[in-house]
């Protein structure tokens, strides 16, 4: 890992970021162009600029563009959260999943589906409240992690262990509820848990964007304090950074980013692990470049995953999260094995 980064001068980071941004735009356009009917790229551009014809307007603006946009936001948000966590824990295997946030959100969704269904298996309320339930579940899980860890919350490893424990409990309860629940709930919950970006409308995107923007700004502000956070606690405090307090703040920020990201699309796995890791390999140690690069790569990954499920499995809607898991799990194993060699 250090071998690759050391060959990249920091001056190359802006170039790498520009290439990522370009790749993202091309991928997003293809994401809109591909589908049950192919819409050529020039016509996609025309629709986006407001000069398209009626059917194409409908397909592009109401069906395809929303899922591309939400995929970009959710993938980017999770990757940014993963970047913050990997930096603050000084551990490249940390990811938003280990905070208990995603499993807490999943439990929120399952409880929502269970409590608000009637005897004929249909929801007594609008499915639009499902993200609210996810967010509440996420908040409950991370609050529990912080409350239980108490004074130990400033220790990265302790907090991660509490997160893993809470995640395991949430996962167990989720499975029990899915097993004893009716079919509708089970398949709906399974969709959320796998992570899918279809059935998204613009107002949901608006909510996600409005919640995520301030969090991303906070992340950029917090990034200034990330370099001294690379040091041990005593040395960090020696140069004026109260590391324990800062760590709690970054954990909370990452948890918030994750819950906003997963609220609508569900628990897309491994992007929060892979994207920041790759970003650091590509752009080097600069924290701002790392944060922006993580967001771009996360966006690219989820948009690409959604494109793959649409092209490969049409007309069945397979959750995009299955693709990220299929690619992400081996990547995680690869990282683990590489690490074992380092540790000896």
């Amino acid at each position, binding site marked *: *890992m*250090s071998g690759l*980064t*050391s060959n990249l001068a920091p001056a190359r980071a802006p170039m790498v970021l520009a290439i990522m941004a370009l790749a993202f735009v091309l991928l997003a356009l293809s994401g809109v162009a591909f589908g049950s009917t192919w819409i050529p790229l020039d016509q996609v551009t025309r629709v986006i600029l407001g000069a398209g014809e009626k059917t194409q307007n409908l397909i592009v603006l109401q069906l395809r563009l929303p899922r591309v946009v939400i995929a970009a936001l959710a993938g980017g948000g999770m990757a940014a959260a993963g970047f913050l966590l990997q930096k603050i824990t*000084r551990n490249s295997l940390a990811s938003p999943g280990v905070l208990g946030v995603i499993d807490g959100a999943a439990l929120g969704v399952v409880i929502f589906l269970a409590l608000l269904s009637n005897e004929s298996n249909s929801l007594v309320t609008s499915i639009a409240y499902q993200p609210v339930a996810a967010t509440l579940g996420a908040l409950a899980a991370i609050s529990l992690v912080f409350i239980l860890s108490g004074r130990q919350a400033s220790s990265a490893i302790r907090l991660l262990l509490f997160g893993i424990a809470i995640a395991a409990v949430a996962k167990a309860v989720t499975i029990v509820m899915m097993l004893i629940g009716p079919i509708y709930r089970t398949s709906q919950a399974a969709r959320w848990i796998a992570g899918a970006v279809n059935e998204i409308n613009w107002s949901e995107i608006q909510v996600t964007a409005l919640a995520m923007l301030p969090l991303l700004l906070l992340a950029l*502000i917090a990034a*200034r304090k990330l*370099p*001294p956070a*690379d*040091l*041990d606690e*005593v*040395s960090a*405090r*020696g*140069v*004026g*950074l*109260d590391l324990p307090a800062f760590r709690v703040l970054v954990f909370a920020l990452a948890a918030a980013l994750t819950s906003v990201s997963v609220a609508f699309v569900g628990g897309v796995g491994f992007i929060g692990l892979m994207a920041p890791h790759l970003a650091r390999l590509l752009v080097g*140690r600069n924290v701002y470049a790392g944060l922006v690069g993580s967001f771009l790569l996360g966006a690219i990954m989820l948009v690409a995953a959604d494109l793959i499920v649409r092209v490969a499995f049409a007309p069945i809607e397979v959750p995009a999260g299955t693709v990220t898991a299929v690619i992400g799990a081996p990547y995680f194993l690869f990282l683990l094995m590489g690490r074992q060699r380092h540790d000896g």
Partner: protein
Amino acid sequence: MTDSAMDHRISVDNLSLAYGAVSVLNALSLPILKGKITVLAGPNGCGKSTLLRAIRRLHRPSGGQVRLGDVDISTLNDRMLARQIGLLAQSPSAPDDMTVEELVRLGRYPHQSMMQPWSADDAAALDRAMAGTGVDHLRKRRLGSLSGGQLQRVWIAMVLAQETDVVCLDEPVNHLDMAHQLDCLDLVRQLNADFGRTVVLVLHDLNLAARYADRLVFLRDGAIAASGTPEELMTEATIARVFDVQSMVITDPVHGRPLCIPLRTQSSTIPA
């Protein structure tokens, strides 16, 4: 170094500190003279590292205070304190893929803010620190590729770049071989002489302490057992009282400093 900074001097007043129910420092008072090297020494568990950390406000005292000039350090914010007192931790750590320059730059962190990004002053301080510690040629090297001695120099460079009037070092030669111990402490003395920094050192080795200290402070059971010049403190009686060791103290024929030859512990039954 600014002129106003020359007024600073640390005084520890009636400082008490406890870890939970265990009392570590008991109403301890100590002046730290400006521009001098003060070495804290004493047997294991005497509280010397705790005292150093309390001076740098890493521990909250249960009583008393530490004053920097006339200011109680508990009233300073983290950045202001970090601009006045630097600290080299006992076992500092940083990622292996961090470069030397990156690490030394972190010494400038307390001088920067959102409104005050990296400036020419910071760059000049960075260059001074790297030149002063002789690590300039290592600038682009990764920390993981350095030897133990080089790494310790780089950490000292980071603390130097902070440009604080007071520098605290917690057992800086612990893991170094004899050559690097001397090298490291010579460097500290040179920084004290050339940059006029007030230095507070925790050292385990009595003879190294006697060789480099202007003022020597012996701690025992959380209190000051003795303080003074090395010549005043390095007596057979004092060493026996503080360390429970019978010794012979001679004058180092090369440096003229007192040199302790330990004979046996006072509880020992084996004849010397």
